[in-house]
């Protein structure tokens, strides 16, 4: 539209600007409508993110530098990243396998029944409401004086901590994270299972296929992108989780979120302030890549399931 206005003759110039301004005015006022939202998101989301991203490429004097990124890819930070990725991957795989089984069991129940509604709500709570309460729940269950620990020790003479107190380390975190990963898998994978049409099963059966054939050649390939995509979402979820680990692990910083906590709560990192930002920036990159792949797989999944 703007292009069609420009080649007008010079004699048309005087009244053109007022005319085009008037015709653009509604469009401009339309943009005013989104201004409050953009301003809010700009101040409380974009600007803080820029502080982290820009800061990770600066030294303490504010000069451009790659030193921070070099630091976080070596030594203790590198080990923390490896452990965080292992923790996220392990809990994501557990969540994918057990969560999809649970989702299948729920998908065969009546859609408006008590089982489905209850499981859905419970999954919503457990997937979102983790954090501190979850850490305490597991301390009450599997802690040194926890219900299960005491029961096994007093009645069956089994000491679950004979090999060390694993609950407060990576194995414990994997175990506890699965308590919110499995419900999250149910939430994100259930719609895909619901998208399977009974006609496909009937078609497979009428062609002489067994349930195995159906799952191997029809449902499996259709669900595969949703399944893998959900797994990526679970990975990102575990990778960014902080509260559970923070409430559980008070000594040492085995995972990256806890390394960042050390930067935010202690003063001893003087001279290295921006290393914390570089850690954060690296986390953003990892999560963004994983979520990007999730988006791609989701688009692929929706091809059949609509």
């Amino acid at each position, binding site marked *: 539209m703007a292009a069609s206005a420009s080649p007008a003759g010079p004699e048309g110039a005087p009244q053109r600007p007022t005319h085009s301004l008037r015709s653009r005015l509604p469009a401009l006022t*339309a943009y005013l*409508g*989104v201004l*409050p*939202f953009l301003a809010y998101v700009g101040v*409380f*989301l974009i*600007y*803080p*993110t*820029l*502080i*982290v991203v820009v800061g990770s490429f600066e030294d303490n004097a504010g000069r451009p530098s790659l030193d921070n990124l070099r630091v976080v890819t070596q030594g203790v930070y590198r080990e923390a990243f490896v452990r965080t990725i292992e923790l996220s991957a392990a809990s994501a795989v557990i969540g994918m396998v057990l969560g999809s*089984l*649970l989702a299948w*069991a729920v998908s*065969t*129940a*009546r*859609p*408006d029944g008590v089982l489905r*509604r209850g499981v859905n*709500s*419970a999954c*919503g*709570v*457990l997937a*979102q*409401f*983790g*954090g501190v*309460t979850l850490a*305490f*729940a*597991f*301390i*009450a269950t599997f802690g040194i004086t*926890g*219900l*299960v620990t005491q029961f096994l020790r007093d009645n069956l003479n089994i000491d679950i901590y004979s090999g060390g107190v694993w609950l407060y380390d990576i194995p414990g975190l994997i175990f506890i994270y699965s*308590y919110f990963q*499995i419900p999250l898998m149910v939430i994100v994978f*259930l*719609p895909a299972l619901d*998208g399977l049409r*009974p006609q496909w099963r009937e078609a497979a059966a009428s062609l002489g296929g067994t349930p195995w054939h159906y799952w191997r050649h029809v449902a499996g390939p259709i669900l595969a992108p949703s399944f893998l995509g959900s797994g990526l979402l679970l990975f990102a979820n575990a990778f*960014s989780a*902080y*509260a559970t680990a923070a409430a559980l692990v008070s000594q040492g910083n085995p995972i990256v*979120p806890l390394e960042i906590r050390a930067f*935010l709560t202690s003063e001893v990192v003087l001279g290295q302030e921006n290393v*914390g*930002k570089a850690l*954060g*920036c690296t*986390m*953003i990159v990892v*999560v963004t890549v994983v*979520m990007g792949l999730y988006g791609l797989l989701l688009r692929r999944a929706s091809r059949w399931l*609509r």
Partner: protein
Amino acid sequence: MTGPPDLNPAPLTAAGAVPPHAGKRRGLPGRTLLRWAILLPLGAFFLLPLAAMVEFSTREENGRHDFRAWAAIGDTPELISAATTSLSLAGLTVAGMLVLLTPTLVWVRLRLPRLQRLLEFLCLLPLMIPAIVLVIGIAPIYTRVAQLLGDSPLTLAFIDIVLVLPFSYRAIDTGLAAIDLRTLTDAARSLGASGVTVLLRVVVPNIRGGLVGASFLAVALVLGEFTLASLLNFTNLQVEINMLGQTDAELSVAVSLAAILFAFTLLLAISFAGHRTKEGVSDGSP
């Protein structure tokens, strides 16, 4: 929370997206067996920690059980004030989220459809920036907020609104996608309604289910928020629970369980609210 609304092409019945084959799934004993073989152990895994929390929170030193810790919830002023803070924060966050998001989403759908992708991207962005990372960048902004508005923990609402954006966006956007927004607003405008009237008396009642869902989710999320509050040195419910864990483990476990049960009740309420609106939508009348 729930999937995209366009997953099921079958015409919406009053009961919502009931798959047409729902009644056919019986007479398969092997399948029922497998179902329970999955449900029972996983159910046990999920219920065990909850049961252990009941046992742990009622445990006394002499091996007996009583409800001292549960009674102490009401007698712990710090806990009451932290819970009040969290509930007030939840209220502020819901109000702010609704005021910020609802008009913007309606406006973009009607006037600036080209911005829809940008808006979606911005709303889902908090999923890509872990809260622990956001807190690094937001700390300097909060020193400024403290200068302007004081040091109240209620200022956490600003950041809580950002944290709930992805979930609220999905709920409200799904609600808007389910109605014929343009026809409704055009009809109302042609009858002389102002923009505010259209929003409050036509759009809002029609997407009530989405708004209720978005609000309850926001409440659950704010009540569970720990990362930003603890690292910005504000005391909310979760921060207080964490501190209590060091002095009175039974009490902290009792409060944890109470909070989980409260959130569960909230989400169960959503599932009923969502059910009701589906019938309302198929009514079609504002």
